């Protein structure tokens, strides 16, 4: 285990150590202490490393992650796991705005609450939030899954494409073109798998409602002008 103390070591040393791991290397476990809200902790990982961050981070933690397993034992600032390609990112506390934005793959688990725009423009990432999510979440979500054990804020799934949303609690309001959909057996199976991957054991897939695109705004139609 390599330990980086950000109180004494520049962040750049941590990130370049993460970027220079040769394929097949054994020394792939990292611990980061004293992050104290630092930005860009563990960005650009492209090897199957594990990173344990002891404390809260600032902007863009684990951005562009491709294959790493990053755990933040604290809260995360805006843009955590933005544009993730693969791997896992787990936030033990809360996440700020646009968690998992534009993510193309991998799994983001937020054990606390996520703020606004969680999963905005998601493109294949799976996001599981144990608590609540804020307004405009999954805005323009293109593919992937957003699972919320708590409540969702205003305008969930506004202008949604093919991302699938599962919410267990209340949804304050649905965004343009987002509707509640039938929960079919294949969705229950998929949701059960996602919950298991995210370490959720005390909640059943039957407790969730599914939301998706009504697909009326895919192509411009003058009759829908008010809805855009």
């Amino acid at each position, binding site marked *: 285990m390599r330990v980086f103390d950000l109180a004494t070591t520049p962040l750049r040393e941590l990130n370049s150590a993460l970027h220079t791991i040769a394929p097949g290397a054994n020394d792939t476990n990292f611990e980061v202490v004293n992050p*104290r809200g630092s930005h860009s902790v563990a960005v650009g990982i492209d090897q199957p490393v594990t990173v344990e961050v002891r404390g*809260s981070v600032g902007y863009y933690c684990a951005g562009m992650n491709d294959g790493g397993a990053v755990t933040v034992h604290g809260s995360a*600032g805006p843009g955590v796991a933005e544009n993730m390609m693969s791997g896992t990112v787990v936030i033990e506390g*809360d996440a700020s705005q646009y968690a998992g934005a534009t993510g193309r793959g991998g799994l983001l688990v937020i054990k606390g609450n996520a703020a*606004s725009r969680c999963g905005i423009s998601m493109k294949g990432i799976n996001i599981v939030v144990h608590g609540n999510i804020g*307004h405009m979440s999954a805005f323009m979500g293109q593919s992937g899954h957003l699972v919320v054990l708590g409540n969702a804020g205003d305008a969930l799934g506004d202008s949604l494409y093919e991302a699938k949303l599962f919410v267990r609690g209340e949804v304050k309001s649905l965004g343009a073109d987002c509707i509640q959909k039938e929960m079919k057996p294949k969705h229950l199976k998929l949701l059960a798998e996602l919950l298991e991957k995210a370490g959720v054991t005390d909640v059943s897939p039957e407790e969730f409602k599914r939301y998706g695109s009504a697909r009326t705004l895919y192509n411009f139609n003058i009759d829908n002008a008010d809805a855009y």
Partner: protein
Amino acid sequence: MCGIVGLFLKDKSLEPQLGAMLSDMLVIMTDRGPDSAGIAIYGAPSDGRAKITVQSADPKQDFAGLEALLKPVDPSVAVELKSTHAVIETNADKSQAVRELLAQERPEIRVMGSGDSVEIYKEVGLPKDVVSRFGIRKMAGTHGIGHTRMATESAVTTLGAHPFSTGADQCLVHNGSLSNHNNLRRELVREGMTFETQNDSEVAAAYLTAEMAKGKDLGQALTSALDDLDGFFTFVVGTKSGFGVVRDPIACKPAVMAETDQYIAFGSEYRALVNLPGIENARVWEPEPATVYFWDHEKAA
């Protein structure tokens, strides 16, 4: 981007450290805006006395003999010089006369803020330089706000720095940009408000002053701001005994708050809060969009 901080103490034993705590919070936010910085500190008001914080681009000339100049209006006047700023303490009932004499005799001097308890210091430059030239770290107080500015809507000048104060013991710091500030300024001018700058944030401060002059409390004025101000904003505001926070309905400007038994703290980022005592066990949350948060020492007492 701009960086904002605010600290409202509940625990009186922390009051001697207010300036030091707020300075640390602000200096950490330097990379959100290096153009100018400012801080407002609310000290303990003393009975019947008022403070006027003034600034001059040429302090040597403008502040020379200032106390002697003002004595005929108020024999009890005391002037404390701090770099480009000076704090004039007078009897509250003489405050207006002092300001009138200042405007007449030393027209180059600008009033940064006034009231029973507030002192406001702001200059172009980095927060660490601003807090050290004014000795902010040594200041005691009950609450305060600070701002480090990345200029977007108007010029990089001392007057364009935050906090903006447009009423007695009132001040505001702003992260964001308003889109209807020109119209709103015209309306406020018609109602009798005056403006020192073309800055959008000064319009927000003046708007709140005008609303409170109609009898609203700070919380009610902030609620009205949600209807009448257009654009992006996170505001942190101070009054003589109050501290408020509001974000616009889109809420894309960052904000994080923390509360313990000892204080309520605001930062643009969590980094600003990490040195506060007991932050590990504080309730930390992100203020909701279009929601007014408001605390008042007088109401709590």
